[in-house]
């Protein structure tokens, strides 16, 4: 018998031949049940090819996942958080074009995920973010000027010019120091959560990863540890469809969704509309409450779209379909929450314009203040000798000797 030769399936970017269905398995708003916190994992797993959504196309909040604890003021604040973040990103992208900063990464289109997530956590909880969760800091009240000082690498940068722009760190604001090595933070978050439980504490951890980096082995180590020890952690997978130039199915493989990853580890996993602020808040609250009541980890796939380039060093026109944003079925997170607030009578064109002007003014003023502190471009950085600080708790002899050679 002659067998056909073996072949591989090699996925390709969609440019030139668009997939008929940019996002599979889209449920209607309100269609999905909100499971009990201790729902059997097998039953939660039935939801992995569905999508938790709260906001319907008209802007009404519908179904069991409606976060009734959110007041109108909370929602207005959420909208403002997202608008502030978008304005922040736009100003820093402009700073990059102006040659003031070396590098930038925006969260355009993904604002709801970090902003709503942060509002659903408690003080003391710890996020282990990637480079696209700056919304956690913005919504968490971290000083915008300090973020800009970090991006400018000036002598007010709390990280003393040691990290690339956007690699923030703030223990006080529950934001773990960002690594450029992808996925490492995922298992660290599980370790942090284990420590909280080992000490009988009440704090939980929230681990972040992009769908592309979920191919790294640290992701799988994290799921094993989280499952084995039932650690109080939220395992977020932000599926923004793109890992630089490769579409999400490279990391997903032949599975249907990233939420599929949970079941093999017996970790309840849900798939959520990441552009729906109310759904993000509700799903985070559900996962956080599971963690905080010793029900163990929850995996959440947030479905969204990276609307911009991967970073300022990337040119997506080479690999992306031109009309991808227009065709993306989950819309824009700011537009959708705005529409909801309008529908419930809490918002209108004038308030929106006023808020937009206010956040833009806040960002402009913050940037002027940070810019006045200088940047890496004009040499207003920390003393180069400080690069030897914090390598160790105490400066060892060989670093003391090397420090003496700086600038010689």
């Amino acid at each position, binding site marked *: 018998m002659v067998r056909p030769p073996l072949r591989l399936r090699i996925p390709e970017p969609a440019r030139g031949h668009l997939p008929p269905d940019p996002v599979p398995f889209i449920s209607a708003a309100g269609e999905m049940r909100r499971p009990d916190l201790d729902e059997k994992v097998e039953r939660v797993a039935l939801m992995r090819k569905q999508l938790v959504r709260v906001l319907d196309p008209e802007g009404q909040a519908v179904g069991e996942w409606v976060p009734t604890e959110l007041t109108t003021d909370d929602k207005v604040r959420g909208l403002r958080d997202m608008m502030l973040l978008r304005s922040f990103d736009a100003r820093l992208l402009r700073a990059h074009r102006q040659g003031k900063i070396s590098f930038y990464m925006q969260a355009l289109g993904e604002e709801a995920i970090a902003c709503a997530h942060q509002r659903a956590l408690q003080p003391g909880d710890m996020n282990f973010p990637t480079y696209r969760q700056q919304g956690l800091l913005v919504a968490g009240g971290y000083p915008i000027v300090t973020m800009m000082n970090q991006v400018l690498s000036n002598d007010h940068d709390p990280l003393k010019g040691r990290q690339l722009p956007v690699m923030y760190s703030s223990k006080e604001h529950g934001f773990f120091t960002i690594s450029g090595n992808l996925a490492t933070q995922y298992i660290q978050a599980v370790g942090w959560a284990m420590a909280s439980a080992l000490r009988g504490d009440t704090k939980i951890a929230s681990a972040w990863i992009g769908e592309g980096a979920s191919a790294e082995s640290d992701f799988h180590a994290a799921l094993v540890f989280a499952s084995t020890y039932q650690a109080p952690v939220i395992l977020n997978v932000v599926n923004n469809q793109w890992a630089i130039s490769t579409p999400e199915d490279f990391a997903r493989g032949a599975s249907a969704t990233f939420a599929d990853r949970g079941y093999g580890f017996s970790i309840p996993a849900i798939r959520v509309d990441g552009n729906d602020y109310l759904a993000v808040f509700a799903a985070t609250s559900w996962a956080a409450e599971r963690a905080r009541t010793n029900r163990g980890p929850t995996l959440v796939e947030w479905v969204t779209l990276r609307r911009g380039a991967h970073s300022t060093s990337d040119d997506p026109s080479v690999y992306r379909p031109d009309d991808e944003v227009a065709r993306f079925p989950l819309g824009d997170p700011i537009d959708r929450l705005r529409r909801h607030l309008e529908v419930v009578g809490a918002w209108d064109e004038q308030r929106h314009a006023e808020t937009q002007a206010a956040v833009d003014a806040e960002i402009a003023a913050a940037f002027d203040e940070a810019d006045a502190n200088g940047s890496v471009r004009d040499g207003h950085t920390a003393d180069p000798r400080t690069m030897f600080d*914090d390598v160790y708790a105490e400066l060892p002899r060989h670093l003391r000797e090397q420090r003496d050679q700086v600038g010689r």
Partner: protein
Amino acid sequence: MARMTMIEAIRDAHAVAMERDDRVVVFGEDVGYFGGVFRCTQGLQERFGSHRCFDTPISEAGIIGAAIGMAAYGLRPCVEIQFADYVYPAYDQIVSEAARLRHRSAGDFTAPIVVRMPSGGGIFGGQTHSQSPEALFTHVAGLTTVVVSNPVDAKGLLLAAIECDDPVMFFEPKRVYNGPFDGHHDRPVVPWSQHPLGEVPEGHYTIPLGTARVHRPGDELTVLAWGTLVHVAQAAAEETGIDAEVIDLRTLVPLDVDCITASVARTGRCLVVHEATRTSGFGAELSATVQERVFHHLEAPVTRVCGFDTPYPHAHEWSYFPGPRRVGRAMQELMRA
């Protein structure tokens, strides 16, 4: 004082640390219920409970990654990698994360973890249970790298490592767990119970990281060694009749430069020995350091005796291992130079 093997000394150091500081947690593969494949954590889970000492899945990246997260929370994890040969899946977590957390966050987050690893050959472990990868960690800014050679040091250095505010790579040459193996594989091993360095102080004490120890004083040449090779060098000195000063570096980074230069300036001759492969081994760093600092005192070129640049062979272990014959011959050649 109590007579202890190096295994017992390490076990005792754990117990002392866990008793003094409830932030110290101990975990790794087979470390909890069973007490470790070399028994270094035996009895800890029973004594301190499974929230202080526990088993992990077989995932080195998971073990170190989780330890980093725990350290960032405020604990003091002391973890075991079952064999140093298995540490590579965790290399990214050690190099990119543990080593740099303090620096990249400007002190906001730190990673005070200890990674214990049985290392080295001489037990017919083949290429996956015999390696000495310490040099790979000395190349990384932010790490402290320790290699122990005897029970007294092992206990005092492990306690210092656990109390250190930075990550420490802690190598335990497994061939000296039970006695000061001198490379004569065809002779019975002397047990630590018959050796002065098996007399271990009870309770808490530390040996400062970054301090070397003169293992055997001498005037004719200086041997820089660590781990098992300390005992091999001593045997070589005694068998050749050369009055060599054998220095046990104990910590490779940070290095006790003063101890090295004082000795070499006096003897004028320096031999570096290590079990790890030769090329880019830590011996190269030592060789450069000695010639940079005490060149004018040297009577002969700095010489190295190392493991060969091959994988650690199973059947040819004793041809590979830098034993007392090879070390002794190098000493004799150095004296003739």
